[in-house]
């Protein structure tokens, strides 16, 4: 398991290679990369700054990964979330999940992202032509996370 909160960019290929390197029991790696968009709530976004709660962030991410491990038979998980100022097109978050078969890997990857969106203490502030604004939490993210409570 690897959990990182960092300002630096990450390399998806290198992270996936690091998971599978030296082992032959992994049959599937599912990965998700979230990127900074140039548009939100109908206006252009020139940049965003991600703030977090050092200490709690790492604990919250570890808890998400532990919950995924309890639900599915996973062989490895990597979560990297960037903080600081990012530009449109910049990668924000990486989740990669290794398992024996694709079903567990796909499901756990989506689960971790859905829970990360609603439980990990990160906040986005956008720079737009009309000034800066804090991003509001979305009900659709709560709904996405709630799906996993029922299953």
């Amino acid at each position, binding site marked *: 398991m690897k959990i990182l909160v960092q300002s630096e960019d990450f390399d998806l290929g290198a992270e996936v290679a690091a998971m599978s390197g030296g082992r032959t029991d992994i049959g599937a790696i599912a990965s998700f990369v979230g990127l900074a968009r140039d548009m939100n709530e109908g206006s252009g976004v020139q940049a965003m700054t991600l703030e977090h709660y050092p200490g709690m962030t790492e604990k919250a991410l570890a808890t998400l990964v532990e919950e995924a491990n309890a639900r599915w038979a996973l062989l490895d998980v990597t979560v990297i979330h960037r903080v600081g100022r990012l530009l449109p097109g910049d990668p924000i978050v990486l989740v990669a999940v290794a398992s024996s078969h694709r079903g567990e890997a796909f499901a756990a990857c989506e689960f971790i992202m859905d829970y990360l*969106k609603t439980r990990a203490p990160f906040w986005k502030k956008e720079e737009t032509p009309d000034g800066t604004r804090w991003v509001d*939490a979305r009900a659709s993210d709560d709904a996405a996370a709630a799906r996993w409570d029922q299953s």
Partner: protein
Amino acid sequence: MKLHVLYFARLRERFGVAEEALEFGGATAAELVAQLQARGGVWAEELAAGRTFRVAVNQEVVALDAALPEHAEVAIFPPVTGG
């Protein structure tokens, strides 16, 4: 009891403070919120009933009726928006 209180994101900006040491005479998170509301101004506005915010105690989100332990690290912040 003594508490270490942290604020993040929009609340940190509006309150104009990132962290403070507080002397607290109550017992629960709700009572701490009430004590902060009593400061008036942006405190009363942002922590008013119906406003959405989260409270974490020692880095875990809790319900407002949670008891606060001595020397707790309490954080108050808006709903999260990472990912």
